[in-house]
């Protein structure tokens, strides 16, 4: 464990063929040492080298894929503890639980409809988990069959009874469901079943120690397509366990914990459950199984997930185009800004606070802020003039006046020439908008 880049380099073919995406074998070796790539990217690596390097070469958390064909959910392959260091790669797979003794068809249909659109993004639930609440194999099998027929979403099968699992896996093996779970008593058979069907297997411990032991036993049987569950169910304990699993995998390369994780909510009250689920999304859970199918609870959770898993090194953009604040009329003011989300939301908030219904033209600057976009020639008079035309502003308002950010006052003359509009120079900062609006539009 923990080989340096140079130690790894000794085992590489030294052809510098670039097939791995790195300029040299040495660069590839360094990336491997940091867990940023995997050895299978090298086309010429020898079996002997593979053997020698396998532990150092594997990423700290294994990339695991649930599902089949085009409909695959990737999980794991995380390298960070804080999102400000580098992007979290795979958003938590949000999975709704359906008991096999309820009306499975109806519930699954309602889960299919959980699709939300906001700020130009579409959010949906990822998976359905069929829970063997009945304790009966035939009921479980029938529920799995019904669910598979009703939804294209991936499926998690939840039972620790090998017989029931065998029956259910049998009817949807080609969908490659996630099998939950192998425990200390049934792991040999569950592993065999998962292996035979090429399904990802969840391994459930009773605490961190027993989880590590059990993972090692399953791996010793020759299977590594795993997700892991420390078995804890209280919010605070799950938070601690998930933190330990992530830290030990990433910082210590502790192999037994180098897998995606799964967590189950326990709160009966659905509002409380939503908050419990939110903690698990925040802290390192790959598959989250929850009960609620209420839109009002899932929309904030899915929004939070979308926020948390954005790339901190890339600015987040809002949809460019014409946005309405309140119910603007032909007399309403027109503000121009970029489509960098923070800038846009600040401007929108302040414009809203003026209580004067308005239009905001969000120019596509690739999601970068006013001054940066100006410096980079992405927020130019030509572009703004073209957008004013493109969104049909001239038909929407009966004036030809637009407010531009004070930081780019220099664009005024050119923009007036390009657009034929009168350009008003607004405040430099969004917090000056209310005052500006009061003296100009009130």
């Amino acid at each position, binding site marked *: 464990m923990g080989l340096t880049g140079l130690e790894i380099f000794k085992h590489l073919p030294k052809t510098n063929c670039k097939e791995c995406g790195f300029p040299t074998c040495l660069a590839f070796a360094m990336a491997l040492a940091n867990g940023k790539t995997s050895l299978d990217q090298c086309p010429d690596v020898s079996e002997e080298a593979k053997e020698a390097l396998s532990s150092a070469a594997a990423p700290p958390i294994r990339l695991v894929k649930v599902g089949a064909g085009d409909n695959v959910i990737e999980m794991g392959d995380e390298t960070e503890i804080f*999102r400000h260091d580098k992007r979290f790669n795979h958003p938590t797979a949000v999975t709704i639980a359906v008991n096999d003794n309820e009306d499975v068809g109806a519930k699954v249909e309602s889960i299919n409809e959980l699709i939300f659109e*906001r700020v130009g993004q579409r959010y949906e639930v990822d998976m359905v988990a069929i829970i063997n609440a009945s304790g009966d194999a035939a009921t479980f099998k029938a529920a799995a069959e019904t669910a598979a027929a009703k939804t294209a979403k991936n499926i998690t099968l939840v039972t620790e009874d090998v017989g029931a699992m065998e029956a259910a896996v049998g009817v949807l093996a080609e969908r490659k469901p996630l099998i939950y779970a192998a425990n200390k008593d049934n792991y040999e058979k569950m592993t065999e079943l998962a292996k035979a069907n090429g399904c990802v297997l969840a391994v459930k411990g009773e605490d961190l120690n027993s989880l590590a032991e059990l993972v090692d036993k399953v791996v010793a049987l020759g299977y590594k397509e795993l997700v892991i569950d420390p078995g804890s169910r209280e*919010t605070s304990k799950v938070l601690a366990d998930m933190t330990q699993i992530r830290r030990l995998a990433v910082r210590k390369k502790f192999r037994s914990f180098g897998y995606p994780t799964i967590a189950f909510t326990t709160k009966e*009250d659905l509002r409380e459950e939503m908050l419990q689920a939110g903690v698990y999304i925040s802290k390192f859970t790959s598959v989250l199984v929850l009960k609620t199918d209420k839109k*009002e609870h899932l*929309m904030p959770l899915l929004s*939070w997930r979308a*926020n948390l898993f954005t790339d901190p090194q890339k600015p987040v953009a809002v949809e460019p185009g014409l946005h309405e604040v309140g119910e603007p009329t032909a007399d309403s003011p027109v503000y121009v800004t970029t489509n960098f989300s923070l800038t846009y*939301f600040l401007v929108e908030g302040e414009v809203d606070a003026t209580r004067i219904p308005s239009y905001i033209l969000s120019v596509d600057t690739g999601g970068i802020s006013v001054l940066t976009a100006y410096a980079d020639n992405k927020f130019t008079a030509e572009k703004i003039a073209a957008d004013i035309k493109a969104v049909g502003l001239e038909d929407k308002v009966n004036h030809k006046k637009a407010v531009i950010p004070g930081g780019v006052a220099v664009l005024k003359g050119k923009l007036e020439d390009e657009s034929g509009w009168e350009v008003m120079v607004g405040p430099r900062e969004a917090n000056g908008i209310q005052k500006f609006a009061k003296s100009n539009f009130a």
Partner: protein
Amino acid sequence: MAVEILKEKYRSSVREVVLGATKEEGGTRAHTIKVGGETALPFLHFEGKIPNRPVVAMEVLDMAPEDWPPSVKSFFEDVYNDPAAWAKKCVDEYGADMIALRFKSADPDLKNASAEDCVATLKKVLEAVGVPLIIYGCGKTEKDNEIIGPLAEAGEGENLLLGVAEQENFKPVASAAMAYKHSVIAQSPIDINIAKQLNILISELSTPLLERIVIDPTIAALGYGIEYSYSIMERARFGALNGDRMLAMPMIGNVSQEVWSKKEAFLEEGEPTWGDQAERSLAWEAATSMALLQAGMDILVMRNPESVKIVKKQIDDLMQDNSY
């Protein structure tokens, strides 16, 4: 093999700030509230101390709000025109740990209430409730600078948490806190360097005041850039634990103000897929609070009593020991 639990050893801790003052301490509060003091990242009890639970301050306005949706307004309909009764209801019925009193009526565009009017309201609210108070102006800097002095003077000895000192305008609030022994909210615009710089400026004005600063990192609502606030808070807390004394303050977040101006909260109709406004809005406020707690928020300013209820329950859960 046994798992070796990985515990971080941090060099430092977040300052503990006491809010409010009892009779013995020169005020009239029934009890004080301590915030901060953490020696670990949020709720990681296994490697350090989280000595004080995060608290919820409920927002009270000094005039009937015009723009609150009925679903939240209904909780306060009987007390709208009486901030003292409103505050009392928040504490007695809805379990508010603190009251955040907002002098909205001072807004020159609304009632343009005088400093004397505001002082009278403050006195009534102080009499009505025994919890520590947070004081916010109307948000218009010039007017807020006029009323903060008289308010601080009227509350002398109560150790109010005074809002808000900003980089370009920290002296009126910081001086008022210094003169009448209050604590102060230092607000920075989602920028860790400005947060630090502002604390340095305040400490240059008054060294003892450094121990009575609460950072407002400026938070955004869920779906509106909250991830920026989240990461700034995580970095600030990490800096605090690693010895940066100019970031080692408890943090406060104005959840209600951010959330309730957003479509997800107030739109009655919403998009067809958004569901019921009442449930959606309380979920949005609670989930925003949940995310901030995970980044180290110490004081949440909230509005909807139903959101407050579930967030407080979650704080109970998160405060359960998770030592190995």
